[in-house]
């Protein structure tokens, strides 16, 4: 009689076991590097931002001043937060309905031969580098966008969000939001399509058997099933939009000091997001305090995207737990 361990010893000699352990250790090591990287990002941003935040004489969250060249150091992120959130929310509001429609097209409407190449074309949109989106938008799309903005200002100008401002051309939060919508469209589309395609066939067939039209079947079977996936996709898209840098930097013009004096709610104002403020001033990181001020802005951006991505993950995990 041989026990199991003896069999194992015959089949796997000692040196095999050692090699096995080394290989497993390598795999664990690589995984630990991933965990360490994320932790290090957080730790480094915090420790580098801290001295600058200590010297800051303004309120970091509510101040609109960003004066870090000469003491007293004063900087606050209120303006950056506003511009970042406005552009990203505009992007999500436009991209979600469009992305969900395209996802439905790919999963339920497109003829079978078209669905696959069509999905790859949408994926190609994600491959276009961000700097090319910025170039395209500011050089080529802006002239076509301006009439739209003028029209909105005329019709909806009585709402503070749509009032006219001194910012000229298409260098506005609204335009940046629209371009960001195009940029996050592929991720929202592909994730939504994935969940729509997983709708149980018997749900769909049951709806059709009850006489539902295709649209009614989608509304009663596909959309409810895909809802958590769509929410999660929207959050991931929001995360992308929050951190998008160079396209936004190219499109929006930063406000002159004069124009910054009074805060405007308007979407047709210029401004700077966290990312574009850092990018615009990347050449000026010459003292630790200056760099620290921008790093603290980057830290807030990191925390924002962290929270948004974590929510996306929780939503999709819940669904998984529910559907299995």
């Amino acid at each position: 009689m041989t026990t199991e361990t003896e069999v194992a010893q015959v089949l796997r000699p000692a040196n095999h076991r050692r090699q096995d352990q080394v290989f497993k250790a390598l795999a664990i090591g690589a995984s630990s590097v991933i965990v360490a990287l994320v932790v290090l990002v957080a730790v480094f941003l915090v420790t580098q931002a801290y001295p600058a935040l200590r010297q800051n004489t303004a309120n970091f969250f509510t101040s609109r001043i960003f004066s870090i060249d000469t003491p007293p150091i004063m900087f606050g992120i209120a303006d950056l937060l506003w511009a970042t959130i406005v552009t990203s929310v505009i992007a999500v509001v436009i991209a979600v309905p469009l992305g969900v429609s395209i996802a439905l097209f790919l999963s339920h409407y497109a003829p079978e031969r078209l669905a696959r190449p069509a999905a790859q074309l949408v994926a190609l949109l994600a491959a276009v580098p961000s700097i090319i989106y910025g170039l395209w938008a500011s050089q080529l799309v802006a002239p076509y966008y301006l009439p739209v903005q003028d029209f909105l200002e005329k019709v909806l100008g009585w709402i503070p969000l749509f009032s006219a401002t001194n910012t000229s051309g298409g260098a506005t939060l609204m335009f940046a939001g629209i371009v960001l919508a195009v940029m996050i469209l592929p991720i929202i589309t592909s994730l939504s399509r994935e969940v729509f395609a997983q709708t149980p066939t018997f749900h769909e067939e049951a709806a059709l058997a009850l006489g539902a039209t295709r649209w009614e079947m989608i509304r009663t079977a596909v959309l409810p099933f895909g809802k958590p996936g769509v929410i999660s996709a929207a959050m991931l898209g929001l995360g992308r939009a929050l951190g998008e840098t160079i396209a936004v930097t190219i499109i929006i013009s930063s406000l002159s000091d004069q124009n910054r004096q009074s805060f405007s709610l308007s979407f047709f104002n210029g401004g700077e997001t966290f990312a574009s403020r850092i990018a615009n001033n990347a050449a000026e990181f010459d003292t630790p305090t200056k760099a620290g001020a921008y790093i603290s802005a980057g830290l807030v951006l990191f925390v924002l995207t962290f929270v948004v991505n974590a929510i996306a993950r929780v939503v999709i995990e819940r669904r998984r737990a529910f559907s299995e």
Partner: protein
Amino acid sequence: MSAATHTPDLVEQALPDPETPQSTGRRVKDRTATVAVWAAFVIAMIPLVWIIVALLVKGGSVVVSASWWTNSQRGMTTLTAGGGAYHAIIGTLLQAVVTAVISVPLAIMTAIYLIEYGRSTRFGRIVSFMLDILTGVPSIVAGLFIYALWVTTFGLQRVPFAVCLALVLLMVPVVTRSTEEMLKLVPNELREASYALGVSKWRTITSIVLPTAFSGIITGILLGLARVMGETAPLLILGPYSQSIATNLFSGFMGTLPTMINAERNEVAAIPLDRVWGAALTLIILVLLLNLAGRLIARYSAVRK
């Protein structure tokens, strides 16, 4: 089940009569939805077609000249036409290759851990969560982190290698996730057959699992490369532009296609604008070629079941 208690009459009442057509309102809604989803797809294609056509039209004449591919911008000003993008192309390729050399082993070993060892372990879940977070880290934050590490903490200069480190942060999650998907597709029977022959676990992984998933892993690497080659934000912080050819990763500045576009985009004269469009076209050609290659490989050599 309650279905047994239903009489045929009741079932018939529940179903719409096939003879009477659907009400007009329902039919109109259905048609509208069909038109709307087709329209949404067409709208999404407009930017793609517009960008590609515009780049071909505006950058085409610049890119077809032979000197574009062989010369740098050394000594060129906004008033002198000519010069090329050779310095930027090799800069972009060099940084991408170094990034890949660091990222790929890290990503593949992590994916192996997640699929072959860490499934449903506590550490596996932590790694998977951190990977999601890393996927979401904005590229400018990756740049800031490396700046805080490399320049502020170690007191080193901004060099091309620091750019590569920032790009590693962006490439690793892409390659890990795609490798993970591919390893999941490898049928368990293959692993079991290998174990049954007395092959050890690491041997099974390296000579059975990885080769089976090989083409899919290559696809993921190519897509990851395409992503990092177009990145601009970390380069703004860590990789100042240079007009000359540079191949030293550890000193001096190195031109790349994104920073070349960025350096000249604010000029209004025709000559620098031509360069901007030329560089943009060159960049998108590189990126789309990598994408196409990746997708073709994925298509023609999927994991065989």
